[in-house]
Structure formats: structure tokens, C-alpha cells
């Protein structure tokens, strides 16, 4: 039977905390935890429409809310480098006008229902969705289907959105943290399909023509390259009827086009200082290519990354924040895409301590291999990942977004249930092997900040750092430097 909830009796909350602080007795010591209660969550169901649209439904009847999200399995990786931002503009423009409704009418009609509509694109995917009270499902679906199937991409709307995007980008380019994320994309992915900025640059956004947007839409927005996700107070039967009624007539514009395959180019470690003389803080990152979504190292990567840089108790936070007070928060992340991926460890710190933080990040990466993640540390990061995962499934939008994360990569729904057991199955040996293969090897670093405050110190440890003045930064090029 495919209905109902799957109960996962998990080792999730079961481990005791070792010898550190729990003695038996009075109120001066922490009482021990009780036996854990089982975790369960809804098991979604799926089917496919005749036009190839994958439909996935998570029945979550506890509150009268409903999230509906449509994902397209193509995004910014399909943009040409000199037209970076095409997927993003296309996604955002869906809600800016259809044959029947203007942009203000779309916003007003969904918001009058008390709902929200959103549409955007990132790497590997584009998406559009609504969140509404479940008794407003039909009017909300009418709007969602209209914006997905019948967008008009009026020139006036393109110009307006382009201008807004450029202004948003100008603000982002004054923040060390967001500048760093643009630079990291280039440092890891070079001139490959993932290298250009998903949202476009100051140079590419003005170059995008309406024809580019229409072409992107007609090529990739097609039922056989999409999935429709319902999460909330709806039954599978009702959702099937809705999707047939609202999306059953959706036909592709042209013959099958497979999602683009992203190459990563040749990577070699580099050290970049992006000099922003007015920066109020420095953003310091260590980064390198890592795993793609279907890598066999996926779960060991998640656990290794969590030990290094997820949560207050992670190694980076213990060393950089708690022990030395050098940052409000240090973290690491895996950017896992269809055909490639990146690992990044980062912290923001006062300009004067940028070099020290860069060294600390490198030391901690190396230590992942020499000082293995084991015992309580390993268990604690497995529990953290499982707990974060369980909490991400608490809301209708959160559940929809976990499903979307699978649908984007064409993964089976069983992957949802595998997450916690797979994380818990990761061993010290797996984490060490991951560290050996991906973390211990040479990294690139990217420091964005006021170079005069740290360059001298930095050069003592890393003589070959390349300094790029803010005014010379060119995000359109793999070498990041404007050509004279």
C-alpha cells in the first residue's frame, strides 16, 4: 500500500554522550536522556502524465496549507557565458505577465488569496511555485499554470527586471561575502558551464535579448523536462486530477532536448586576494572541486563536511569562533550539482586577521585526515545532519523543496527514506577517505577585503597570492581580470 506514513525507527536520537558530564544523582549534573521516540514522515507518491510530466504528491493533511512547486531540470548551466543570467531572467519573468494577466494582476490575484507565488532559476534547475491555504488550491493552480504555460516575456517587463537585477547586483558587489561567492564560482568551475554567475553580471544582463529568453523557455520548459510537486493538505487522487486539468495539455515546443552536460574545465589551485579598500570585514574562503550528485562519496562527503563546518560544535567553529573569537561564524559547504561540485570552507573576520583565518582554514582541512572524525564527534555530526533533515521536512514548503532536490536530479523518491540510514552508516574510515581524496589535496583560496590590512602577513605564508583590485574584477572571465 502506498498510502500513509513510513515509520523510521531510527538510531537518530539514541546515542549516549559518553563520559563527559552525566553522572547519576542530584540537580548539579545533567539528567540522562530518556528512550528516543520514533520519527516518521509522509511517504510521497508519484505518477507520470501522458505528456511526460512527473507528478509527486506528499499528503500532509495536518494544516490547511498547500505548497505546489514545478521544477524544470535545466537552469543557469544552459546559459552561454556572454549571456549569463538568461535562465534566471526567464524564470523570474514567468510571473511578470501572461496572455491573460499583467504582472500586477498576477501578484494581486495570488496575494488576494493570501498566497505567495515565486519563480526563479539556479544551476541545474528553474522553478515556479505557490504557497496557499489549501482551500484556494484551484485559483492558485489556475495562476501557476498560466505563468508556466503562457508567459509573454514582454519587452517592457524584460527591461524592468533587468534594471532591478542590475541594481541588486550593484549592492551585492559591495558585500565581501557575496563578492566571494561570485569569485569562488569562477575559481572552481573556470570557464565551464557552472563557472558563470547564475544571476548574470553587469555586462551580460544588458546583452540578453528577448529572443534569448524565448529560446531558453521553448527549449527547456517542457513537460518531459519537468516535475510537479504537491506538498500539503491534498490527496494523491485530487492532485492527479488537478495536474491533468491544469497541466495535461502542456506540449513541448520542439523535439526532445536533453539537459546540457556541464564540463568543469581544468582546475588548478590558485590564491586570490580581491582588494576592496572600503570593506568593513574580510571574507576568507578555501575552495576546490568536490563531488557531483551521483558520486558514491555523497554521504561520506556530507558527514565530513558537517564535522568540519556545520554547527557551533564543528571543528571550524571551535577553532575560529569559540577558541579565538575571530569570526561570528565559520562554516563549510558542499555545492553539489548534477555534473560537478565544489567544497568551500569560509569565515568572515576583521581585515587584520584575514591571513590568520586563511591559515586556520587550511590547517583544519588537513587535520580532517590526520585527526580522524570518530566516536562522539562522528555520532554528533550524524545526529546533526539527521536532525536538520527531519526539521527540513516539518513544513509543506520544506518537504516540497526536499522532493524538488530529488526531482531536479531525476532521483527516485526512495532516496528520501535513505538519507538518515545512509548518513548513519558512514564510518570513520569513509570520512577519512573523503578527506584524503577531496580535502587534504591543495586548495584555492579567495580573500575579499581590504588588502592593505593583511597582505603583508599573508605573503609570509602564501607568497604567490594574486591581488586583483575591485575595479579590475571581471566576473565574465575565468581569470577574473579585466582586459585592458
Amino acid at each position, binding site marked *: 500500500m502506498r498510502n500513509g506514513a513510513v515509520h523510521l525507527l531510527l538510531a*537518530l*536520537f539514541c546515542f549516549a554522550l559518553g563520559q*563527559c558530564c552525566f553522572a547519576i544523582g542530584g*540537580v*548539579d549534573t*545533567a539528567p540522562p*536522556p*530518556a528512550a*528516543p*521516540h520514533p*520519527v516518521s514522515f509522509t511517504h510521497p507518491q508519484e505518477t507520470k502524465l501522458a505528456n511526460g510530466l512527473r507528478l509527486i504528491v506528499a499528503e500532509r493533511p495536518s*494544516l*490547511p*496549507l498547500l505548497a505546489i512547486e514545478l521544477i524544470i531540470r535545466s537552469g543557469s548551466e544552459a546559459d552561454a557565458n556572454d549571456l549569463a543570467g538568461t535562465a534566471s531572467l526567464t524564470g523570474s519573468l514567468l510571473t511578470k505577465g501572461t496572455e491573460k494577466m499583467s504582472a*500586477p494582476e498576477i501578484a*494581486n490575484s495570488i*496575494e*488576494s*488569496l*493570501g*498566497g*505567495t507565488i515565486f519563480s526563479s532559476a539556479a544551476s541545474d534547475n528553474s522553478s515556479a511555485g505557490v*504557497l*496557499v*491555504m*489549501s*482551500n*484556494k488550491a484551484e*485559483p492558485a493552480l489556475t495562476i501557476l499554470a498560466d505563468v508556466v504555460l503562457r508567459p509573454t516575456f514582454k519587452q517592457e517587463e524584460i*527591461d*524592468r527586471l533587468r*534594471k*532591478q537585477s542590475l*541594481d541588486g547586483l550593484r*549592492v551585492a558587489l*559591495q*558585500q*565581501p561575502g557575496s563578492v566571494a561567492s561570485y569569485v569562488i564560482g569562477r575559481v572552481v568551475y573556470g570557464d565551464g558551464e557552472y563557472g558563470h554567475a547564475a544571476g548574470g553580471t*553587469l555586462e551580460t544582463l*544588458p546583452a540578453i535579448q528577448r529572443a534569448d529568453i524565448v529560446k531558453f523557455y521553448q527549449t527547456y520548459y517542457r513537460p518531459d523536462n519537468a516535475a510537479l510537486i504537491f506538498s500539503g493538505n491534498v490527496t494523491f487522487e485530487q492532485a492527479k486530477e488537478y495536474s491533468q486539468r491544469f497541466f495535461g495539455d502542456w506540449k513541448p515546443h520542439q523535439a526532445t532536448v536533453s539537459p546540457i552536460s556541464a564540463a568543469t574545465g581544468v582546475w588548478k589551485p590558485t590564491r586570490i586576494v580581491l582588494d576592496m579598500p*572600503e570593506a*568593513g*570585514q574580510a*571574507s576568507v574562503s578555501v575552495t576546490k572541486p568536490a563531488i557531483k550528485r551521483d558520486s558514491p562519496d555523497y554521504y561520506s562527503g556530507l558527514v565530513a563536511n558537517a564535522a568540519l563546518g556545520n*554547527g*557551533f*560544535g564543528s571543528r571550524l567553529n571551535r577553532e575560529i569562533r569559540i577558541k*579565538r*573569537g575571530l569570526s561570528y561564524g565559520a562554516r563549510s559547504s558542499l555545492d553539489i550539482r548534477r555534473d560537478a561540485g565544489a567544497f568551500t570552507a569560509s569565515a*568572515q*573576520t*576583521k581585515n587584520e586577521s584575514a591571513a590568520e583565518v586563511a591559515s586556520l582554514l587550511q590547517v583544519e582541512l588537513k587535520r580532517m585526515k590526520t585527526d580522524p572524525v570518530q566516536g*562522539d564527534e562522528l555520532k*554528533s555530526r550524524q*545526529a*546533526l545532519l539527521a*536532525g536538520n533533515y*527531519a*526539521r527540513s521536512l516539518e*513544513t509543506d514548503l520544506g518537504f516540497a523543496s526536499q522532493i524538488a532536490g530529488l526531482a531536479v536530479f531525476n532521483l527516485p523518491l526512495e532516496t528520501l527514506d535513505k538519507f538518515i540510514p545512509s548518513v548513519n552508516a558512514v564510518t570513520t574510515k569513509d570520512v577519512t577517505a573523503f578527506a584524503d581524496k577531496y580535502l587534504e589535496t591543495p586548495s584555492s583560496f579567495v580573500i575579499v577585503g581590504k588588502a592593505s590590512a593583511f597582505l603583508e602577513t599573508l605573503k609570509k605564508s602564501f607568497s604567490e597570492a594574486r591581488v586583483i583590485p575591485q575595479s579590475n574584477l571581471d566576473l565574465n572571465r575565468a581569470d577574473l581580470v579585466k582586459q585592458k
Partner: protein
Amino acid sequence: MYAGRLLFLFSACFTLTTSGLSREPDAEIKKLSFKHTTLQNGLEIYSIEDHSSPTVAVQVWYHVGSKDDPNRRSGFAHLFEHIMFKGNEHLTPETFEELTENVGGENNAFTAPDVTVYHEVVPSNYLEPILWAEAERMSSLALNDANFNSERDVVKEEYRQRILANPYGEFSLAIDQKSFAAHPYKRPSIGNIAELDAAQLPEVKAFHSTFYRPDNATLIVVGDFKATDLETWTKKYFGPITRPAAKIPRVTVAEPPRKEDASEVLSSAKAPLPAFAVTYLAPSVRSEDAAALDLADEILSGGQSSRLYQSLVYEQQVAQRASFSADLREDLGLLTFRVIVASGKSLPEAEKSLNDQIEKILKNGVSEAELDKAKNRFLTGKLMERETNNGKASALGEAAVIYRDPNHINTDLAKYRAVTVSQIKDVLNKYITGKKKVLIEYLPDAKREAAKPQEAEKP
């Protein structure tokens, strides 16, 4: 008495009836049954049993916020919040991580102008240990200089990250600083580097004994627990904490009415676009006018169909961002209009557009459809808040501590539903028409402006 194992067993139903065009059946939102007890030492405890997931949200709301920062110690209440994680003779600096994220939970805290809130979500079998730990840090802190100094450095990095690394960080700080003349709300929660540096360890201890006491705290527990267990544990761990004899000091400074309009011009080396804010003094969050002001906030700036987005951002394209907030606090509040000017447009152009919109809503009021929309959005937001134990705990804490009416979580919907279009117009006129405004302009440095390259964009 408590409500029993099923959360909604004794629930009533509210329905939202709208006078607009909506003909779908009205959404139901169920009443939350909470239990309230007060310990002998004055600790207020509110709880909701809900076994739908094996987690519990625990929050401790202390009725002390950045408005209670000691003199010349702006940012102290927030610094203190950080120190609360650093342990005592029974707690190590790692205890909260060990009892939360290391077992699949999470923890954090925030400092607001009126309150400081410590919150955790834990697997339900960890409820007893986390209650013990919260009781421990309520009863005492034992600090050393090393912990204190490193945590102060963390807070200074937080200041740099939020304020200095953000091109509009100093603009945001200036709004409270320039808008309040006398009330300590003028001091930003995050403080400033000099006053953070001046803080001393003995002041931390004094702050704890002054404000961190059971009769100044409210414990909220929502999720998978048995009421009898909760009663036993709260008595066991919080019960022995003594209630000090001294009176809790309260801010008594009254903000004087504004006598004239004021304006401030700030310049920024980082801001790529000019920005400005216009503020008016507003009433307490407990005022009768609060519901109508909240709905006015929604009508003016909630979503892309809101008035300010439609006029300033969409139609006229004079603003990169435009918002209004009815920022109501315990003692009084601010009505704040905030605009980041779009490139190629001037600040005076954007200011005129904003003034036109303000004038229009004051003169003509709002439509029934706009008000219905705002009420529907409020209802959806309330449902979303109900999706998690933590969301329900936050709502209950806010109701009990900020609104001083825990039942506010169940009565607010009726209050909002009762607001009429004429009330919206009336409250906006009450606090804006004939009142004095503060204007804060935030301009990119002239020298950077001059060096700016020509606009690259073309269609």
C-alpha cells in the same frame, strides 16, 4: 488541568470571513490549547502538548532587552546573551551543543529591544536535560576573563558582519538612533565597538543578578512530552531558584512628542545607491491601534501587489526597494518608510513619489479588497507559524511576554478580522497627519560618485 494528549481535542474553530470576492470555503484555524502554571518563585510556564513529531521546542523569554543596556554600555544585553552559553560550575561552554545539535537538535538565542530569548529544539527524549541546563544558567553564571574576552571578540565580528560589511548596515543603525530622542530604543541592540570594549566582567555578573531571575522569565515548552513529566521536571530544576528581593528595574524614560521635523544626512563609502528613511512615532504594541497598523503595514508593503512596490518599484521604477513597517515595541514604536533609490533616479524624485503615496493613503484610505488581501495574508502567515513546534512556541512566547496576553495566539485573528477600512485610514492619520517626521538620508560618497563608470545598461 491540562488538555490531554491530543492537541486539538478541545479546540474551537475560527473561520475567516471576508467581505471580498472570495467564494471558496473559508479556511479553518484551530485554537491552540495551552497550559499555564506559575512557580512559587514567579517563573511563568506555558506549554502545548503535541505528539505529531518526536521533538520539543523549549524557549526561555527573559523580559530584558537592549533597551535595558546599562548606561554607556550599548550592546551589553546582546553581549550578555552570548555569555549565557559560556557555562557555570555545572555547565561547560559545550553543554548546550551537547544537549542540542550533537543529538539532532538545535539551539540559538536573540536579543530584541524588549526581550532576550533562548530557544532550542531537541529530540523529545532530551527534554529533561535541556530543562536542567536552562535552569542552571538561570541560577548562575561562572565566568573567566578568557571566555569573556573571546566571546566579546565574536560579538565585535558580528557587528562587523551585520553593520560594516553590509553597504546599508549603517543606514539601518541610524534609523533608531535618529528617530528616538530620549528613549533607550535609540541605542541599537548590536551596540558599538567602543562600548563593547569598555564592558567589564563584573558588569556581567551584576546584569545576571538584576535581570536573569525566575520572576522575570517565561518558559515555553511545545511538542512531544507528557504534562506530568513537565510538571515534575520544571519543579525539580527551576523550583529551587530563588526570587531575589530587589525590584526589577524598568525603563521609565518617556519619549517626548516631536516638536519639529528633523533630518540627518549620512554618507557611505560602500552604498552604491542612495537610500532614505522617514519615521513617525507610533504607539505601543499593546495599543488598541496595533492590529490596524499591522494591516496597514501589509497593505503598504506586503508582497509585490502592495502599494509601495506597485507604485515606487514597479510603475515609476524610482526605487530598488521600498518598504513600510509598523515596528511596534513594548513602550512605543516607529512607523518607518524605507527606500533604496533605483539607479538613474534621484533621491528627491523617490522622496516625492513616496510622499505622494503617503498623502494618497491618508486622504483616500484603502479599499475593501486591499484589506481582505491583508487579512488573508495574515491568516496564511499564522498557519505557517503553526507548522512547527518552534513556530508555535515563538507565537506563545510573544503573546505571553510582549502582548502580556497568552490567549492573544487565539484571539488575534478575530481582532484583525474586525478591523475596517475606515480604521486603517484613521490610525494612519492619527500617527502621521500633523505629526513631525524624521528624515534620514544615506548618500554614496561624493568622491565615489564622481569615479563611478557610466551606466553600462542598454536594452
